[in-house]
């Protein structure tokens, strides 16, 4: 029996959980960027062009901390390099569940929206028995999430760094969104064999920040953790 194709609107509707998750975090990013001295236009431009939450928080830390452009570019691209894995993993899952490879017509359009959460949602959809997938659905889910991220950033930046000065507990809670976001993302990503990577990254950060600066510590932690993971990866993960 042929499966009904899912389209753009189903994808847009499917983005609602991501929109609810993205908007408040994007507002927090806008407030953080404003506190770090970036204008509304700069914060919104960063969300429009880079569109990768963790690296945007890192970008504000690095650039506001006086890191040079080369260090910032290398750090941010290294952080975002994991996105190389998403399209192959997604398309392989599509091939398996849709009984063959679909010709791709608009990957240039939906690729920009292939963030951690959109990728995870697409895989979640494909894990459902007999669920179908289409590029229009992918454009829809990606567009909803993108608009939430960009508009949330603009709202946060418009509110400004001093928006919650009269409510220090709210201000503190918003500032603490970064650690809780990174802890949640870490818990979502980490598998049992990754714990040496996590420990190495934290030690690398501590050493780098003690010897040089916080931004150097982040870069050292990333690279040291990545190298440890490369050599400690389980055999099946390397061979598949």
């Amino acid at each position, binding site marked *: 029996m042929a499966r009904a194709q899912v389209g753009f609107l189903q994808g847009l509707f499917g983005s609602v959980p991501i929109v609810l*998750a993205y908007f408040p975090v994007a507002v927090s990013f806008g407030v953080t960027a404003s506190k770090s001295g*970036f204008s509304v236009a700069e914060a919104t*431009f*960063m969300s429009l*062009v880079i*569109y990768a939450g963790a690296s945007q928080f890192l*970008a504000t830390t690095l650039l506001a901390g006086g890191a040079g*452009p080369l260090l910032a*570019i290398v750090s*941010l*691209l290294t*952080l*975002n*390099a994991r*996105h*190389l*894995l*998403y*399209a*192959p*993993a997604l398309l*392989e899952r*599509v*091939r398996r569940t849709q009984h063959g*490879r679909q010709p*791709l017509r608009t990957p240039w359009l939906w690729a*920009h929206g*292939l963030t951690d*959460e959109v990728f995870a949602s697409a895989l979640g959809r494909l894990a459902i028995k007999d669920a179908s997938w289409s590029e229009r659905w992918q454009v829809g889910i990606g567009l909803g999430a993108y608009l939430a991220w960009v508009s949330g950033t603009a709202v946060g930046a418009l509110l400004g760094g001093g928006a919650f000065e009269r409510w*220090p*507990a709210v201000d503190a*809670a*918003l*500032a*603490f*969104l970064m*650690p*809780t976001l*990174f*802890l*949640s993302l*870490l*818990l979502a*990503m980490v598998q049992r064999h*990754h714990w040496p*990577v*996590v420990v190495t*990254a*934290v030690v690398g950060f*501590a050493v780098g920040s003690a010897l040089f600066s916080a931004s150097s*510590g*982040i870069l050292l*932690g*990333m*690279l040291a*953790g990545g190298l*440890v993971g*490369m050599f400690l*990866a389980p055999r099946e993960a*390397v061979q598949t």
Partner: protein
Amino acid sequence: MNLEFFLVCVVVGVGTYLFRYLPTRIGGRAGARAMSGRLGAFLASVGVASVAALLAASLEPVLAGALTSGRLGVAAAAFAGLVTTFALFRWRNDVALATMAGAAVYGLVFWLVS
């Protein structure tokens, strides 16, 4: 908008777009195979390592500030926020819920102790 900021955003934005787009040109099994092996293991680990380093970097000013100023209540608030995030994520497997709840608990304990 200064030129340095603009250039960093554009270079990182274009690079990130290419990370997402170029593998679709290889596609499916061939792409998965290309990203397997040591390169794939490195890229998979570097994502985890990046987030771990960012977590440490975002916690460091909170904890260092609390400990050096003797405001142990702030450290307790951070502990409560992180434990809430951990427990909620383990319970519901929901990044947004765990993130927001952890920050809310931090703010609540911060308000109680300050």
